[in-house]
């Protein structure tokens, strides 16, 4: 039953990597400890590295540069890899961090001395320089102080540059960031009073530790670099496996669905920009302290592209991958290309080939970058270390296992689903005169309907009658032109989708909008976003409270998935794009339930399902309803509507043409006409 893999040039590389992964040197370590042991080994190696190469200063220096680029790659990975926002001007934040330190730790800007500066002198932030014709102020802010300050300052610019791009889709966002990436070096060049223009800042102070200056010896910088990269790896991994990381990945996978599941797009995109920029800002400070100079050329477009190449090479979204990518490319650049060129020259002399003797690989590094980008995109888009691990496919027996729908006892279900009943006064959802226009087309015309607590309302109507638009308008995806929507007694029209979800209204989409490259479990846990509270700081600290919240969320997600019996539980670690159509529908419903809604909007939940699956799902929906959940259902299968709905609303051409119990609506002349045309309704009348 195993499918034979066809071998193409692309998959040979994949097979080689698969082989390497199988021959993993950590095979003897217990699986749950592997990550920790691997991290520890990497750290020991990094610490011992200067000794291993005999303290060769030039080599340690290039290793320190490699660490700087690893930090940049980690920062860009937050923006591009986690949140999916392609930033082509990332070097701008590197420049901002570099110049911030350069400005406060050099003799570039020296205002006249006055009493104002005395407290700063006392704090060792400035020094008084005695000079004929008036004393001057010399900024001498410590490197260690500037490291977090530059990070914060760059983060501010991250928000500033990120804010205008929020509404743009991927490729346009890339262009705007590219524009900012160009503007920053030009401003630096044209603002000589602060930056010394094209000449660059010189004489930037080296860091000091316990009174000893780092000077120009590479080793201390190397260890600072190791610390910086370790800190950023720690930050990245903690964020990635938290509520924050899940929210970013949800935005990356499907922005609309993310906001419909409660993720505040603006907030989390800006957070990604800010954290990514902060990484670059700190790295800029480190880099300039190491070089003790900064020029605009160090931060141009090629640098942004180089960092992009590093993360594409290592694996977009993979924390260790991007570190590896950065280190390999830097080491390649500073060590191997020179040697390789020499070898090629020798080879050329040996076999008498002229051009081989003149090849200079070091100057072709950008050509190599270009080739890496193209070939990685064509043949190995997941990079050296893929961000998502492959999971075992289900065996034939598991795939064809008899469907067992555990029917949890009512008490059990209460625990799983929480309290979903609305007990306030009045109906749960009240829509009055809702009108939505798209240009000249009126998609909804003054539609009113109300959903009492603990009821199932079905919305039916021919294609194009405005059913999905109704859902979109109610959940905030489309702004209504007129009308009122009250939910649980409060007006919600015009609120953004994530707020609507937070109020207790969750939905599914007609054409399934899951997060395709995330697992079943991750999808459902994103549904819980609005119910959880961990922010970036909490994710980093991972205090007991956060751990408990995360563990409870995971457990709750599994319980919700178990409502679908053994349909989803065996596939919990599978990416949803590999699931069958019906299972994807089920995951989408589970994701909506995870937000613990009071009202569930289902847009054609049984579309594309066979009769047995339809029946199964209808029973499950019925059970949710019995539990107290109110449901609005768009559905074409009338048997499902009749068996579930307390009340049916019929839309045609954006107007409500009938409302009532399923039996009443089924006999309504107008409804028959809308569905079958006038002649059918006449014939129906004749038969009656």
């Amino acid at each position, binding site marked *: 039953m195993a499918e034979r893999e066809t071998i193409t040039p692309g998959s040979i590389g994949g097979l080689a990597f698969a082989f390497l992964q199988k021959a993993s040197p950590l095979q003897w370590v217990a699986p749950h400890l592997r990550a920790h042991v691997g991290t520890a080994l990497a750290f020991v190696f990094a610490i011992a590295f200067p000794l291993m190469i005999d303290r060769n200063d030039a080599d340690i220096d290039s290793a320190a540069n490699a660490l700087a680029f690893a930090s940049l790659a980690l920062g860009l990975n937050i923006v591009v890899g986690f949140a*999916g926002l*392609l930033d*082509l001007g990332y070097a701008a934040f590197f420049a901002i961090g570099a110049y911030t330190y350069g400005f406060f730790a050099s003799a570039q800007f020296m205002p006249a001395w006055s009493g104002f500066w005395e407290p700063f002198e006392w704090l060792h932030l400035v020094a008084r320089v005695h000079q004929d014709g008036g004393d001057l102020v010399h900024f001498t802010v410590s490197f260690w102080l500037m490291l977090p300050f530059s990070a914060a300052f760059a983060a501010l610019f991250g928000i500033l540059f990120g804010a*205008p*791009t929020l*509404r*743009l*889709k*991927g*490729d*346009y966002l*890339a*262009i*705007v960031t*590219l*524009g*900012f990436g*160009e*503007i920053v070096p*030009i*401003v630096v*060049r*044209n603002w000589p009073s602060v930056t010394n223009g094209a000449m660059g800042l010189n004489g930037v102070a080296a860091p000091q530790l316990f009174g000893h200056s780092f000077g120009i010896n590479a080793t201390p910088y190397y260890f600072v670099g190791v610390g910086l990269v370790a800190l950023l790896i720690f930050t990245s991994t903690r964020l990635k496996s938290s509520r924050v990381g899940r929210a970013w990945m949800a935005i990356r996978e499907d*922005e*609309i669905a993310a906001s419909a599941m409660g993720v505040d797009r603006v907030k989390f995109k800006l957070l990604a920009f800010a954290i990514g920029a902060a990484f670059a800002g700190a790295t800029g400070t480190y880099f300039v302290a190491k070089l003790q100079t900064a020029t605009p050329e160090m931060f141009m*477009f090629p640098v942004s*592209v180089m960092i*992009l190449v590093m993360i*594409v090479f290592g694996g977009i979204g993979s924390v260790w991958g991007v570190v590896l990518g950065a280190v390999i490319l830097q080491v390649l650049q500073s060590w191997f290309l020179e040697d390789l060129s020499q070898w090629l020259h020798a080879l050329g002399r040996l076999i008498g080939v002229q051009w081989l003797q003149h090849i200079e690989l070091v*100057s*072709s590094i*950008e*050509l190599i*970058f*270009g*080739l*890496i*980008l*193209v070939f990685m*995109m*064509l043949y190995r*888009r997941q990079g050296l270390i893929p961000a998502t691990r492959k999971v075992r496919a289900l065996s034939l027996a598991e795939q064809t296992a008899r469907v067992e729908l555990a029917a949890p006892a009512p008490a059990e279900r209460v625990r799983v689903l929480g309290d979903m009943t609305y007990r306030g006064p009045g109906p749960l959802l009240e829509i009055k005169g809702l009108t939505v226009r798209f240009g000249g087309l009126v998609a909804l015309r003054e539609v009113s309907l109300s959903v009492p607590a603990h009821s199932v309302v079905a919305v039916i109507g021919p294609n194009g009658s405005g059913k999905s638009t109704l859902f979109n308008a109610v959940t905030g995806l489309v702004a209504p032109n007129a009308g009122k929507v009250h939910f649980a007694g409060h007006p919600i029209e015009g609120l953004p989708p994530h707020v609507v979800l937070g109020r207790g209204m969750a939905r599914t989409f007609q054409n399934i909008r899951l997060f395709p490259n995330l697992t079943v479990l991750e999808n459902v846990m994103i549904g819980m976003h609005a119910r959880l509270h961990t922010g970036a700081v909490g994710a980093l600290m991972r205090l007991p409270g956060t751990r408990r919240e995360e563990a409870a969320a995971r457990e709750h997600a599994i319980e919700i998935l178990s409502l679908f019996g053994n349909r989803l539980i065996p596939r919990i670690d599978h990416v949803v794009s590999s699931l069958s159509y019906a299972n994807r529908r089920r995951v989408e419903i589970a994701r909506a339930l995870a937000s613990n809604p009071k009202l569930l909007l289902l847009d054609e939940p049984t579309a594309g399902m066979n009769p047995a699956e339809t029946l199964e799902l209808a029973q499950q929906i019925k059970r949710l309803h019995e539990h107290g959940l109110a449901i609005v259902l768009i559905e074409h299968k009338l048997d499902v509507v009749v068996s579930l709905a307390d009340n049916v609303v019929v839309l045609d051409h954006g107007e409500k043409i009938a409302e009532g119990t399923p039996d009443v609506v089924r006999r309504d002349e107008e409804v028959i006409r809308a569905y079958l045309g006038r002649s059918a309704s006449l014939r129906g009348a004749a038969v009656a």
Partner: protein
Amino acid sequence: MGWEAVYLQQVINGLSLGAMYALLALGFTLVYGILELINFAHFNVFMVSSFIGMMALEFFGLSGQSHILTGLALAGVMAFAFVATMLVAGLLGVAIERFALRPLRGIPGTVGMITTIGISYILFNLVLLTKGAGSFNFPNPMPRVAWTIAGATLDLREVLIWGVALVLMTGLHLFVNKTRIGKAMRATAQDSEAARMMGVDVDRVIVMAFFLGSALAGAAALIFGLYYNYTSFIIGYTAGLRAFTAAVLGGIGSVTGAMVGGIIIGLIEALGGQLIAVRWTDVIIFSILVLVLVFAPTGLMGRANPTKS
């Protein structure tokens, strides 16, 4: 020169630059209109084309600006140079589409764009490695004929540039709107799935878009060389970004928009350099790019919507 003459002169310069940017912008817009792909390779297809144009002119033994041709000889050499450059550039575009982009078609997200950045880098560095970092004197056989209008100078080369641009843009307009394959292109741009079902060979349409766009970049590259009398491996980036800004300003995906946007950017570059300072020109143009994308993403006459996701 009085100030009126200075400004008139800058308007003349701006129109020439604008004609070049418009031709280059058309390449971005044709490909974007059909594939929704921002083609960074276009920057350096333009740059490579300028070297092809140089070779085409050198083929006639021309070098520098001292070999002056007149009459039929001039017309013949110019026609050959334009046709040869456009043809080779067009084929380069087709090759890029065939070997690097077609295998990635249908993959969502920014994969295609990242690939075009890679191709752009490859072209850039191939020229750098084979030709070196210096700038090359671009052959220009046009006689030094100039007219003085209200104190400003109008060169023959400017007339030629405007003429070529006008002919090519009219030709493209007629091609897109009056021919069968042009109709297929417009249909594919609207909805490639539906076009395919109606029997349009979408692959052919895409190849055509790359060919036409790259050929126009070839014409723009020759104009660049004739206008500035030099070429170098770095010319693709700045000119490309300005042309891209023109395409966005006009409304990416819109052929007329690219033409109008190109002229506007050319005028802004010439007059902005005069009114503010040349060193801020790039900041002005990038700011326009950012502002248009953020506040009026459909541009002057676009239909594409950069904010939809």
